[in-house]
Protein backbone atom coordinates (compact mmCIF):
# COMPACT_ATOMS: atom_id res chain seq x y z
CA UNK A 1 0.00 0.00 0.00
CA UNK A 2 1.48 3.30 -1.04
CA UNK A 3 -1.58 5.23 0.08
CA UNK A 4 -0.81 8.14 2.40
CA UNK A 5 -1.86 8.20 6.04
CA UNK A 6 -5.15 10.01 6.64
CA UNK A 7 -5.43 12.03 9.81
CA UNK A 8 -8.58 13.79 10.90
CA UNK A 9 -7.78 17.19 12.42
CA UNK A 10 -10.52 19.40 13.88
CA UNK A 11 -10.57 23.17 13.97
CA UNK A 12 -12.05 24.34 17.30
CA UNK A 13 -12.81 27.74 18.72
CA UNK A 14 -15.42 30.42 19.27
CA UNK A 15 -17.19 32.05 16.34
CA UNK A 16 -15.40 34.50 14.10
CA UNK A 17 -11.93 33.69 15.46
CA UNK A 18 -10.72 32.73 11.96
CA UNK A 19 -10.84 28.92 11.82
CA UNK A 20 -12.15 28.83 8.24
CA UNK A 21 -9.69 31.57 7.21
CA UNK A 22 -6.79 29.60 8.68
CA UNK A 23 -7.82 26.52 6.68
CA UNK A 24 -8.21 28.60 3.52
CA UNK A 25 -4.79 30.13 4.06
CA UNK A 26 -3.26 26.72 4.71
CA UNK A 27 -4.98 24.72 1.98
CA UNK A 28 -5.56 27.32 -0.74
CA UNK A 29 -3.09 30.10 0.23
CA UNK A 30 -5.82 32.74 0.08
CA UNK A 31 -7.36 35.17 2.51
CA UNK A 32 -10.63 37.03 2.33
CA UNK A 33 -11.57 40.03 4.46
CA UNK A 34 -15.25 39.20 4.51
CA UNK A 35 -16.66 37.05 7.28
CA UNK A 36 -18.80 34.07 6.33
CA UNK A 37 -20.02 31.97 9.20
CA UNK A 38 -19.63 28.20 9.02
CA UNK A 39 -22.67 25.98 9.55
CA UNK A 40 -22.06 22.40 10.64
CA UNK A 41 -18.75 21.13 9.33
CA UNK A 42 -16.61 21.97 6.33
CA UNK A 43 -14.17 19.35 5.15
CA UNK A 44 -10.89 20.03 3.38
CA UNK A 45 -7.79 18.00 2.63
CA UNK A 46 -4.15 18.98 2.73
CA UNK A 47 -1.25 16.74 1.89
CA UNK A 48 1.84 17.24 4.04
CA UNK A 49 5.19 15.83 3.02
CA UNK A 50 7.25 14.98 6.06
CA UNK A 51 10.84 13.73 5.95
CA UNK A 52 9.92 10.04 5.89
CA UNK A 53 6.23 9.99 5.11
CA UNK A 54 3.33 11.73 3.49
CA UNK A 55 0.25 12.58 5.56
CA UNK A 56 -3.15 13.66 4.35
CA UNK A 57 -4.66 15.98 6.91
CA UNK A 58 -8.43 15.76 6.68
CA UNK A 59 -9.45 19.09 8.17
CA UNK A 60 -12.82 19.27 9.90
CA UNK A 61 -13.59 22.93 10.21
CA UNK A 62 -16.27 22.96 12.90
CA UNK A 63 -18.79 25.76 13.27
CA UNK A 64 -17.86 28.08 16.11
CA UNK A 65 -20.71 28.33 18.55
CA UNK A 66 -21.41 31.40 20.64
CA UNK A 67 -23.00 29.02 23.10
CA UNK A 68 -20.47 26.42 24.12
CA UNK A 69 -23.21 24.05 25.24
CA UNK A 70 -24.50 23.65 21.70
CA UNK A 71 -21.10 22.42 20.55
CA UNK A 72 -21.38 18.94 19.02
CA UNK A 73 -18.60 17.03 20.70
CA UNK A 74 -19.44 14.00 18.51
CA UNK A 75 -17.88 15.76 15.53
CA UNK A 76 -14.49 15.04 17.06
CA UNK A 77 -14.98 11.31 16.81
CA UNK A 78 -11.93 9.78 15.20
CA UNK A 79 -9.88 12.99 15.32
CA UNK A 80 -6.11 12.51 15.60
CA UNK A 81 -5.59 16.02 16.85
CA UNK A 82 -7.03 19.50 16.80
CA UNK A 83 -6.26 23.14 16.32
CA UNK A 84 -7.62 25.38 19.06
CA UNK A 85 -8.17 28.87 17.73
CA UNK A 86 -8.72 32.06 19.72
CA UNK A 87 -8.92 35.64 18.49
CA UNK A 88 -6.05 37.64 20.00
CA UNK A 89 -8.11 40.80 19.76
CA UNK A 90 -11.04 39.29 21.73
CA UNK A 91 -9.81 37.91 25.06
CA UNK A 92 -13.13 36.17 25.75
CA UNK A 93 -12.45 33.79 22.83
CA UNK A 94 -9.41 32.44 24.66
CA UNK A 95 -11.71 31.37 27.49
CA UNK A 96 -13.97 29.67 24.96
CA UNK A 97 -10.98 27.83 23.44
CA UNK A 98 -9.79 26.68 26.86
CA UNK A 99 -13.17 25.31 27.89
CA UNK A 100 -13.53 23.55 24.52
CA UNK A 101 -10.19 21.89 25.19
CA UNK A 102 -11.45 20.69 28.56
CA UNK A 103 -14.58 19.23 26.98
CA UNK A 104 -12.57 17.42 24.32
CA UNK A 105 -10.14 16.04 26.86
CA UNK A 106 -12.98 14.88 29.11
CA UNK A 107 -14.57 13.05 26.19
CA UNK A 108 -11.60 11.73 24.21
CA UNK A 109 -8.62 11.99 26.57
CA UNK A 110 -5.47 13.89 25.75
CA UNK A 111 -5.08 14.48 22.01
CA UNK A 112 -2.32 16.43 20.29
CA UNK A 113 -3.37 20.03 19.75
CA UNK A 114 -1.94 23.45 18.98
CA UNK A 115 -3.32 26.74 20.26
CA UNK A 116 -3.32 29.62 17.81
CA UNK A 117 -3.96 33.20 18.86
CA UNK A 118 -5.17 34.41 15.55
CA UNK A 119 -5.29 37.88 13.94
CA UNK A 120 -1.76 38.74 15.08
CA UNK A 121 -1.61 41.28 12.22
CA UNK A 122 -4.11 43.46 14.13
CA UNK A 123 -1.42 44.71 16.50
CA UNK A 124 -3.40 47.86 17.37
CA UNK A 125 -6.24 45.80 18.81
CA UNK A 126 -4.15 42.95 20.24
CA UNK A 127 -5.38 42.15 23.72
CA UNK A 128 -3.41 39.11 24.87
CA UNK A 129 -0.22 39.83 26.77
CA UNK A 130 3.07 38.02 26.28
CA UNK A 131 2.98 36.94 29.91
CA UNK A 132 -0.38 35.25 29.29
CA UNK A 133 1.15 33.44 26.31
CA UNK A 134 4.14 32.42 28.40
CA UNK A 135 1.78 31.17 31.12
CA UNK A 136 0.01 28.91 28.59
CA UNK A 137 3.31 27.63 27.23
CA UNK A 138 4.37 26.72 30.75
CA UNK A 139 1.65 24.09 30.66
CA UNK A 140 3.71 22.43 27.93
CA UNK A 141 1.36 23.59 25.17
CA UNK A 142 2.29 24.56 21.64
CA UNK A 143 1.00 28.16 21.57
CA UNK A 144 1.62 30.65 18.77
CA UNK A 145 0.23 33.89 17.50
CA UNK A 146 -1.04 33.43 13.97
CA UNK A 147 -2.48 35.41 11.12
CA UNK A 148 -4.57 34.03 8.30
CA UNK A 149 -3.97 37.35 6.54
CA UNK A 150 -0.18 37.22 6.58
CA UNK A 151 0.21 33.47 7.04
CA UNK A 152 2.21 33.89 10.25
CA UNK A 153 2.34 30.71 12.33
CA UNK A 154 -0.13 28.81 10.07
CA UNK A 155 2.12 26.36 8.23
CA UNK A 156 4.12 25.61 11.40
CA UNK A 157 1.05 24.77 13.43
CA UNK A 158 -0.34 22.23 10.97
CA UNK A 159 3.06 20.73 10.30
CA UNK A 160 3.65 20.30 14.03
CA UNK A 161 0.32 18.54 14.34
CA UNK A 162 1.08 16.34 11.31
CA UNK A 163 4.31 15.24 12.96
CA UNK A 164 2.78 14.64 16.35
CA UNK A 165 -0.25 12.73 15.08
CA UNK A 166 1.82 10.34 13.00
CA UNK A 167 4.80 9.70 15.24
Amino acid at each position, binding site marked *: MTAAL*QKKICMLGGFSVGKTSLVKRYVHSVFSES*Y*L*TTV*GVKIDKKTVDLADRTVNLILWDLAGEDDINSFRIGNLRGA*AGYVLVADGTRPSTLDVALSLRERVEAEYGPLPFVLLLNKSDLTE*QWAVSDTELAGLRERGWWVQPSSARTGEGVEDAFKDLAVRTTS
Partner: protein
Amino acid sequence: MESLPASLAERLRELTFNERSVAYLEIDDALNLVGAGGHLDNYGLAAIRLGEPAVDQAVFLAGLLPLEETPFSVPSVELECGRAADLHFYLDAGIVWVVLLDVTAERDATRRLQQKAYDMTLLQEKEAQLNRRLEEMNRELEAANDFLVRISTKISHYLAPQIYKSIFSGQKDVTIHTERKELTIFFSDIKDFTATTEGLQPEEITHLLNEYFTEMSAIALKHGGTVDKFIGDALVIFFGDPETKGTAEDARACLNMATDMQRRLAELNVKWRSAGTEQPFRVRMGVNTGFCNVGNFGSLDRMDYTAIGAEVNLAARLQTIAEPGHIVISYETYALVRDIVAARALPQIAVKGISRTVIPYVVEGVLDETGRKIEIFSEHMTGLDFYLDPRAVDAAARERIRATLKNAIEALDAREVDARAEDARAEPRDRSKRLRPRSPTTK
Protein backbone atom coordinates in the same frame (compact mmCIF):
# COMPACT_ATOMS: atom_id res chain seq x y z
CA MET B 1 -44.12 3.05 6.89
CA GLU B 2 -46.33 0.02 7.24
CA SER B 3 -49.38 2.16 7.68
CA LEU B 4 -48.75 4.15 4.51
CA PRO B 5 -50.50 3.08 1.32
CA ALA B 6 -48.10 1.36 -1.04
CA SER B 7 -48.30 4.06 -3.69
CA LEU B 8 -47.61 6.87 -1.18
CA ALA B 9 -44.69 4.97 0.32
CA GLU B 10 -43.28 4.60 -3.14
CA ARG B 11 -43.88 8.29 -3.85
CA LEU B 12 -42.10 9.27 -0.64
CA ARG B 13 -39.16 7.06 -1.51
CA GLU B 14 -38.94 8.75 -4.91
CA LEU B 15 -39.27 12.21 -3.39
CA THR B 16 -36.56 11.64 -0.83
CA PHE B 17 -34.29 10.03 -3.34
CA ASN B 18 -34.54 12.96 -5.75
CA GLU B 19 -35.06 15.94 -3.44
CA ARG B 20 -32.37 14.82 -1.00
CA SER B 21 -30.05 13.52 -3.70
CA VAL B 22 -29.64 10.31 -1.80
CA ALA B 23 -26.34 8.47 -2.27
CA TYR B 24 -24.86 5.56 -0.38
CA LEU B 25 -21.57 3.77 0.22
CA GLU B 26 -21.20 0.18 1.33
CA ILE B 27 -18.01 -0.71 3.22
CA ASP B 28 -16.92 -4.16 4.34
CA ASP B 29 -15.03 -5.08 7.51
CA ALA B 30 -11.71 -4.79 5.63
CA LEU B 31 -12.71 -1.11 5.15
CA ASN B 32 -12.89 -1.58 1.38
CA LEU B 33 -15.63 -0.04 -0.67
CA VAL B 34 -17.86 -2.85 -1.84
CA GLY B 35 -20.87 -0.98 -3.11
CA ALA B 36 -22.10 2.53 -3.95
CA GLY B 37 -25.12 4.11 -5.55
CA GLY B 38 -27.56 7.00 -5.82
CA HIS B 39 -26.57 10.55 -6.66
CA LEU B 40 -22.84 9.97 -6.12
CA ASP B 41 -21.95 12.73 -8.61
CA ASN B 42 -23.77 15.28 -6.39
CA TYR B 43 -21.08 14.72 -3.76
CA GLY B 44 -18.06 14.48 -6.07
CA LEU B 45 -17.97 10.69 -5.60
CA ALA B 46 -18.74 9.61 -9.16
CA ALA B 47 -15.24 8.27 -9.78
CA ILE B 48 -15.01 5.90 -6.83
CA ARG B 49 -13.78 2.38 -7.46
CA LEU B 50 -15.15 -0.67 -5.74
CA GLY B 51 -12.77 -3.06 -4.02
CA GLU B 52 -10.39 -0.32 -2.90
CA PRO B 53 -10.00 1.30 0.57
CA ALA B 54 -13.00 3.53 1.29
CA VAL B 55 -11.09 6.19 3.25
CA ASP B 56 -8.81 6.99 0.31
CA GLN B 57 -11.82 7.74 -1.88
CA ALA B 58 -14.16 9.50 0.58
CA VAL B 59 -11.87 11.52 2.85
CA PHE B 60 -14.68 12.43 5.29
CA LEU B 61 -14.52 8.80 6.46
CA ALA B 62 -11.04 9.33 7.95
CA GLY B 63 -11.00 8.31 11.61
CA LEU B 64 -14.63 7.13 11.59
CA LEU B 65 -14.07 3.52 10.56
CA PRO B 66 -14.57 1.00 11.94
CA LEU B 67 -17.78 2.36 13.46
CA GLU B 68 -17.70 2.72 17.23
CA GLU B 69 -21.37 3.51 17.48
CA THR B 70 -24.34 2.62 15.31
CA PRO B 71 -26.38 4.31 14.08
CA PHE B 72 -24.32 7.47 13.97
CA SER B 73 -24.78 10.71 12.08
CA VAL B 74 -23.04 13.97 11.37
CA PRO B 75 -25.34 16.77 10.27
CA SER B 76 -24.50 19.35 7.64
CA VAL B 77 -21.06 18.39 6.38
CA GLU B 78 -19.74 20.48 3.51
CA LEU B 79 -17.68 18.22 1.30
CA GLU B 80 -14.77 19.27 -0.88
CA CYS B 81 -17.16 19.68 -3.81
CA GLY B 82 -19.09 22.37 -1.91
CA ARG B 83 -22.33 20.45 -1.33
CA ALA B 84 -23.53 20.03 2.22
CA ALA B 85 -24.85 16.66 3.36
CA ASP B 86 -26.16 14.96 6.45
CA LEU B 87 -24.06 11.81 6.88
CA HIS B 88 -25.75 8.73 8.34
CA PHE B 89 -23.73 5.68 9.32
CA TYR B 90 -25.04 2.31 10.39
CA LEU B 91 -23.72 -1.22 10.62
CA ASP B 92 -25.70 -4.10 9.23
CA ALA B 93 -24.39 -7.65 9.01
CA GLY B 94 -20.72 -6.62 8.96
CA ILE B 95 -21.34 -3.95 6.35
CA VAL B 96 -21.07 -0.24 7.15
CA TRP B 97 -23.63 1.75 5.26
CA VAL B 98 -23.03 5.43 4.70
CA VAL B 99 -26.00 7.45 3.50
CA LEU B 100 -25.64 11.00 2.23
CA LEU B 101 -28.66 13.33 2.19
CA ASP B 102 -28.22 16.74 0.58
CA VAL B 103 -28.92 19.68 2.92
CA THR B 104 -27.21 22.47 0.98
CA ALA B 105 -30.36 24.61 0.80
CA GLU B 106 -31.08 24.22 4.51
CA ARG B 107 -27.44 24.90 5.31
CA ASP B 108 -27.59 28.14 3.31
CA ALA B 109 -30.80 29.24 5.06
CA THR B 110 -29.32 28.51 8.48
CA ARG B 111 -26.15 30.36 7.50
CA ARG B 112 -28.08 33.50 6.61
CA LEU B 113 -29.74 33.55 10.04
CA GLN B 114 -26.60 32.62 11.92
CA GLN B 115 -24.59 35.22 10.02
CA LYS B 116 -26.98 37.97 11.13
CA ALA B 117 -26.89 36.82 14.73
CA TYR B 118 -23.09 36.61 14.82
CA ASP B 119 -22.65 39.93 13.04
CA MET B 120 -24.87 41.48 15.68
CA THR B 121 -22.96 39.83 18.52
CA LEU B 122 -19.66 40.95 17.00
CA LEU B 123 -20.94 44.50 16.76
CA GLN B 124 -22.00 44.40 20.39
CA GLU B 125 -18.62 43.01 21.40
CA LYS B 126 -16.93 45.72 19.36
CA GLU B 127 -19.07 48.38 20.97
CA ALA B 128 -18.30 47.09 24.45
CA GLN B 129 -14.61 46.97 23.59
CA LEU B 130 -14.69 50.51 22.21
CA ASN B 131 -16.46 51.68 25.34
CA ARG B 132 -13.81 50.06 27.49
CA ARG B 133 -11.10 51.73 25.41
CA LEU B 134 -12.87 55.04 25.68
CA GLU B 135 -13.10 54.70 29.43
CA GLU B 136 -9.45 53.71 29.56
CA MET B 137 -8.51 56.70 27.41
CA ASN B 138 -10.61 58.93 29.60
CA ARG B 139 -8.80 57.68 32.66
CA GLU B 140 -5.45 58.23 30.94
CA LEU B 141 -6.52 61.69 29.87
CA GLU B 142 -7.62 62.49 33.39
CA ALA B 143 -4.30 61.29 34.76
CA ALA B 144 -2.40 63.31 32.16
CA ASN B 145 -4.56 66.29 32.96
CA ASP B 146 -3.91 65.94 36.69
CA PHE B 147 -0.22 65.76 35.94
CA LEU B 148 -0.40 68.89 33.80
CA VAL B 149 -2.38 70.70 36.47
CA ARG B 150 0.23 69.80 39.06
CA ILE B 151 3.07 70.89 36.79
CA SER B 152 1.36 74.08 35.71
CA THR B 153 0.57 74.89 39.32
CA LYS B 154 4.27 74.59 40.04
CA ILE B 155 5.10 76.74 37.02
CA SER B 156 2.51 79.29 38.08
CA HIS B 157 4.63 80.25 41.08
CA TYR B 158 7.31 81.49 38.70
CA LEU B 159 4.92 83.71 36.74
CA ALA B 160 2.70 86.67 37.44
CA PRO B 161 -0.82 85.25 37.90
CA GLN B 162 -2.20 87.31 35.01
CA ILE B 163 0.57 86.14 32.68
CA TYR B 164 0.02 82.55 33.78
CA LYS B 165 -3.70 82.88 33.21
CA SER B 166 -3.35 84.42 29.79
CA ILE B 167 -0.88 81.75 28.65
CA PHE B 168 -2.73 78.76 30.08
CA SER B 169 -6.12 79.95 28.86
CA GLY B 170 -4.65 80.11 25.37
CA GLN B 171 -5.11 83.87 25.03
CA LYS B 172 -1.42 84.44 24.61
CA ASP B 173 1.01 82.57 22.41
CA VAL B 174 4.37 81.72 23.84
CA THR B 175 6.37 83.37 21.09
CA ILE B 176 8.78 86.24 20.95
CA HIS B 177 6.36 89.06 20.43
CA THR B 178 6.06 92.48 22.01
CA GLU B 179 3.50 95.25 21.84
CA ARG B 180 3.59 98.95 22.55
CA LYS B 181 1.25 99.71 25.37
CA GLU B 182 0.67 102.53 27.81
CA LEU B 183 1.55 101.16 31.21
CA THR B 184 1.92 102.47 34.72
CA ILE B 185 5.15 101.06 36.08
CA PHE B 186 5.98 100.72 39.75
CA PHE B 187 9.44 100.26 41.22
CA SER B 188 10.19 99.77 44.90
CA ASP B 189 13.41 99.19 46.75
CA ILE B 190 14.25 98.65 50.41
CA LYS B 191 16.48 101.42 51.69
CA ASP B 192 19.84 100.09 52.84
CA PHE B 193 18.63 96.53 52.71
CA THR B 194 22.13 95.13 53.08
CA ALA B 195 22.91 97.30 56.11
CA THR B 196 19.48 96.61 57.62
CA THR B 197 19.95 92.88 57.45
CA GLU B 198 23.65 92.82 58.27
CA GLY B 199 23.26 91.23 61.69
CA LEU B 200 20.83 88.57 60.47
CA GLN B 201 21.45 84.97 59.46
CA PRO B 202 20.88 84.17 55.77
CA GLU B 203 17.83 82.09 56.74
CA GLU B 204 16.31 85.02 58.59
CA ILE B 205 16.95 87.33 55.66
CA THR B 206 15.33 84.84 53.29
CA HIS B 207 12.37 84.51 55.57
CA LEU B 208 11.95 88.29 55.94
CA LEU B 209 12.31 88.92 52.24
CA ASN B 210 9.93 86.15 51.28
CA GLU B 211 7.33 87.39 53.71
CA TYR B 212 7.77 90.93 52.42
CA PHE B 213 7.45 89.84 48.77
CA THR B 214 4.51 87.55 49.49
CA GLU B 215 2.62 90.34 51.24
CA MET B 216 3.45 92.93 48.59
CA SER B 217 2.57 90.57 45.73
CA ALA B 218 -0.79 89.83 47.31
CA ILE B 219 -1.50 93.56 47.47
CA ALA B 220 -0.36 94.00 43.87
CA LEU B 221 -2.65 91.20 42.75
CA LYS B 222 -5.56 92.64 44.70
CA HIS B 223 -5.18 95.89 42.76
CA GLY B 224 -4.75 94.14 39.41
CA GLY B 225 -1.01 94.73 39.06
CA THR B 226 1.23 92.35 37.12
CA VAL B 227 4.24 91.46 39.25
CA ASP B 228 6.98 91.66 36.66
CA LYS B 229 9.99 90.61 38.67
CA PHE B 230 11.89 90.60 41.92
CA ILE B 231 15.40 91.98 41.62
CA GLY B 232 17.16 91.35 44.88
CA ASP B 233 15.07 93.37 47.31
CA ALA B 234 13.49 95.43 44.54
CA LEU B 235 10.03 94.85 43.15
CA VAL B 236 8.79 95.72 39.65
CA ILE B 237 5.07 95.78 38.96
CA PHE B 238 3.16 97.12 36.01
CA PHE B 239 -0.47 97.95 35.32
CA GLY B 240 -2.08 97.86 31.88
CA ASP B 241 -1.07 94.41 30.63
CA PRO B 242 -2.24 91.73 30.15
CA GLU B 243 -5.33 93.25 31.75
CA THR B 244 -6.18 96.92 31.57
CA LYS B 245 -9.02 99.10 32.80
CA GLY B 246 -7.81 102.08 30.83
CA THR B 247 -4.70 104.19 31.43
CA ALA B 248 -6.23 106.43 34.13
CA GLU B 249 -7.78 103.55 36.05
CA ASP B 250 -4.53 101.59 35.83
CA ALA B 251 -2.57 104.54 37.25
CA ARG B 252 -5.08 105.00 40.08
CA ALA B 253 -4.93 101.29 40.87
CA CYS B 254 -1.15 101.55 41.04
CA LEU B 255 -1.25 104.46 43.50
CA ASN B 256 -3.84 102.73 45.64
CA MET B 257 -1.60 99.69 45.65
CA ALA B 258 1.42 101.75 46.66
CA THR B 259 -0.36 103.37 49.60
CA ASP B 260 -1.77 99.97 50.62
CA MET B 261 1.75 98.61 50.56
CA GLN B 262 2.97 101.42 52.80
CA ARG B 263 0.19 100.70 55.26
CA ARG B 264 0.88 96.96 55.30
CA LEU B 265 4.60 97.57 55.60
CA ALA B 266 4.00 99.60 58.74
CA GLU B 267 2.14 96.66 60.25
CA LEU B 268 4.83 94.23 59.17
CA ASN B 269 7.54 96.39 60.69
CA VAL B 270 5.75 96.30 64.05
CA LYS B 271 5.47 92.55 63.81
CA TRP B 272 9.08 92.05 62.76
CA ARG B 273 10.39 94.32 65.46
CA SER B 274 8.45 92.46 68.13
CA ALA B 275 9.99 89.30 66.68
CA GLY B 276 13.46 90.76 67.18
CA THR B 277 14.38 92.44 63.91
CA GLU B 278 15.78 95.77 65.04
CA GLN B 279 15.94 97.73 61.79
CA PRO B 280 12.68 98.34 59.97
CA PHE B 281 12.23 97.97 56.23
CA ARG B 282 11.97 101.45 54.74
CA VAL B 283 10.87 101.34 51.16
CA ARG B 284 11.26 103.88 48.36
CA MET B 285 8.69 103.75 45.60
CA GLY B 286 8.66 105.24 42.09
CA VAL B 287 5.77 105.32 39.64
CA ASN B 288 5.61 106.44 36.01
CA THR B 289 3.06 106.16 33.22
CA GLY B 290 4.02 105.95 29.54
CA PHE B 291 4.35 103.83 26.44
CA CYS B 292 6.52 100.75 26.84
CA ASN B 293 7.24 97.61 24.90
CA VAL B 294 5.61 94.74 26.71
CA GLY B 295 5.72 91.05 25.82
CA ASN B 296 8.12 88.15 25.57
CA PHE B 297 11.78 89.05 25.46
CA GLY B 298 14.69 86.69 25.22
CA SER B 299 15.41 83.59 23.19
CA LEU B 300 13.06 80.87 21.99
CA ASP B 301 14.43 78.61 24.74
CA ARG B 302 14.08 81.03 27.56
CA MET B 303 11.74 84.00 27.54
CA ASP B 304 10.75 86.59 30.04
CA TYR B 305 7.45 88.33 30.00
CA THR B 306 8.38 91.91 30.87
CA ALA B 307 8.16 95.55 29.90
CA ILE B 308 11.08 97.62 28.66
CA GLY B 309 11.65 101.16 27.49
CA ALA B 310 12.72 104.61 28.64
CA GLU B 311 9.46 105.00 30.62
CA VAL B 312 10.35 101.92 32.63
CA ASN B 313 13.78 103.36 33.34
CA LEU B 314 12.14 106.58 34.46
CA ALA B 315 10.04 104.72 37.03
CA ALA B 316 13.25 103.18 38.37
CA ARG B 317 14.91 106.57 38.47
CA LEU B 318 11.98 108.15 40.37
CA GLN B 319 12.28 105.41 42.94
CA THR B 320 15.93 106.34 43.56
CA ILE B 321 15.08 109.96 44.31
CA ALA B 322 12.26 109.06 46.71
CA GLU B 323 12.94 109.44 50.39
CA PRO B 324 12.63 106.15 52.29
CA GLY B 325 8.96 105.56 53.04
CA HIS B 326 7.85 107.84 50.24
CA ILE B 327 6.37 107.55 46.77
CA VAL B 328 7.66 109.69 43.90
CA ILE B 329 5.61 109.79 40.72
CA SER B 330 6.09 111.42 37.33
CA TYR B 331 3.92 114.31 36.15
CA GLU B 332 2.34 111.92 33.64
CA THR B 333 1.15 109.68 36.45
CA TYR B 334 0.22 112.59 38.68
CA ALA B 335 -2.03 114.01 35.96
CA LEU B 336 -4.01 110.77 36.07
CA VAL B 337 -4.24 110.39 39.86
CA ARG B 338 -4.53 113.97 41.11
CA ASP B 339 -8.10 113.28 42.21
CA ILE B 340 -6.97 110.64 44.66
CA VAL B 341 -3.55 111.80 45.92
CA ALA B 342 -2.00 115.04 47.04
CA ALA B 343 1.53 115.58 45.76
CA ARG B 344 4.17 118.28 45.69
CA ALA B 345 6.46 119.00 42.72
CA LEU B 346 10.19 118.42 43.10
CA PRO B 347 12.95 120.04 41.03
CA GLN B 348 12.95 118.79 37.45
CA ILE B 349 15.35 116.07 36.43
CA ALA B 350 16.86 114.88 33.17
CA VAL B 351 16.51 111.23 32.21
CA LYS B 352 18.40 109.52 29.41
CA GLY B 353 16.12 108.55 26.55
CA ILE B 354 13.36 110.96 27.53
CA SER B 355 13.35 114.26 25.68
CA ARG B 356 10.59 116.01 27.65
CA THR B 357 11.10 117.79 30.94
CA VAL B 358 10.57 115.40 33.79
CA ILE B 359 9.02 116.84 36.91
CA PRO B 360 8.84 114.41 39.80
CA TYR B 361 6.07 114.68 42.37
CA VAL B 362 6.34 113.39 45.88
CA VAL B 363 3.08 111.96 47.20
CA GLU B 364 2.08 113.72 50.40
CA GLY B 365 -1.17 112.00 51.13
CA VAL B 366 -4.34 110.60 49.75
CA LEU B 367 -7.52 112.55 49.09
CA ASP B 368 -10.90 111.60 50.45
CA GLU B 369 -14.12 111.64 48.43
CA THR B 370 -14.52 115.39 48.87
CA GLY B 371 -10.98 116.05 47.68
CA ARG B 372 -9.63 116.80 51.13
CA LYS B 373 -6.05 115.73 51.74
CA ILE B 374 -5.54 113.07 54.33
CA GLU B 375 -2.00 112.88 55.56
CA ILE B 376 -0.73 109.52 56.56
CA PHE B 377 2.05 109.49 59.07
CA SER B 378 4.56 106.70 58.90
CA GLU B 379 7.89 106.59 60.70
CA HIS B 380 9.89 103.55 61.56
CA MET B 381 13.29 103.48 63.18
CA THR B 382 15.01 102.00 66.17
CA GLY B 383 12.91 103.12 69.11
CA LEU B 384 9.89 104.13 67.03
CA ASP B 385 7.08 102.49 65.13
CA PHE B 386 4.62 105.11 64.12
CA TYR B 387 1.86 104.88 61.60
CA LEU B 388 -1.24 106.98 61.59
CA ASP B 389 -4.00 106.96 59.05
CA PRO B 390 -6.52 109.49 60.46
CA ARG B 391 -9.27 107.98 58.31
CA ALA B 392 -8.95 104.69 60.09
CA VAL B 393 -9.54 105.91 63.66
CA ASP B 394 -12.81 106.78 65.36
CA ALA B 395 -13.52 109.52 67.91
CA ALA B 396 -12.59 107.51 70.98
CA ALA B 397 -9.36 106.36 69.40
CA ARG B 398 -8.52 109.91 68.37
CA GLU B 399 -8.73 110.96 72.03
CA ARG B 400 -6.48 108.15 73.12
CA ILE B 401 -3.96 108.92 70.37
CA ARG B 402 -3.87 112.59 71.32
CA ALA B 403 -3.13 111.66 74.94
CA THR B 404 -0.46 109.18 73.90
CA LEU B 405 1.21 111.68 71.60
CA LYS B 406 1.13 114.34 74.31
CA ASN B 407 2.77 111.98 76.79
CA ALA B 408 5.25 110.93 74.15
CA ILE B 409 6.32 114.53 73.46
CA GLU B 410 6.74 115.18 77.18
CA ALA B 411 8.86 112.05 77.48
CA LEU B 412 11.00 113.14 74.55
CA ASP B 413 11.46 116.63 76.00
CA ALA B 414 12.47 115.20 79.35
CA ARG B 415 14.95 112.90 77.64
CA GLU B 416 16.34 115.89 75.78
CA VAL B 417 17.06 117.70 79.03
CA ASP B 418 18.73 114.61 80.53
CA ALA B 419 20.84 114.07 77.43
CA ARG B 420 22.14 117.65 77.46
CA ALA B 421 23.08 117.41 81.09
CA GLU B 422 24.89 114.11 80.52
CA ASP B 423 26.62 115.55 77.52
CA ALA B 424 27.83 118.56 79.41
CA ARG B 425 29.17 116.42 82.26
CA ALA B 426 30.98 113.93 80.04
CA GLU B 427 32.76 116.22 77.61
CA PRO B 428 32.32 119.83 78.65
CA ARG B 429 34.94 121.15 76.19
CA ASP B 430 34.06 119.17 73.03
CA ARG B 431 30.85 120.82 71.77
CA SER B 432 31.00 119.20 68.35
CA LYS B 433 30.13 115.78 69.72
CA ARG B 434 27.01 116.91 71.44
CA LEU B 435 24.06 114.71 70.68
CA ARG B 436 21.80 116.47 68.23
CA PRO B 437 18.08 116.59 68.86
CA ARG B 438 16.33 113.43 67.64
CA SER B 439 12.92 114.83 66.87
CA PRO B 440 10.90 112.59 64.59
CA THR B 441 10.55 113.83 61.03
CA THR B 442 7.00 114.64 60.27
CA LYS B 443 5.57 114.48 56.81
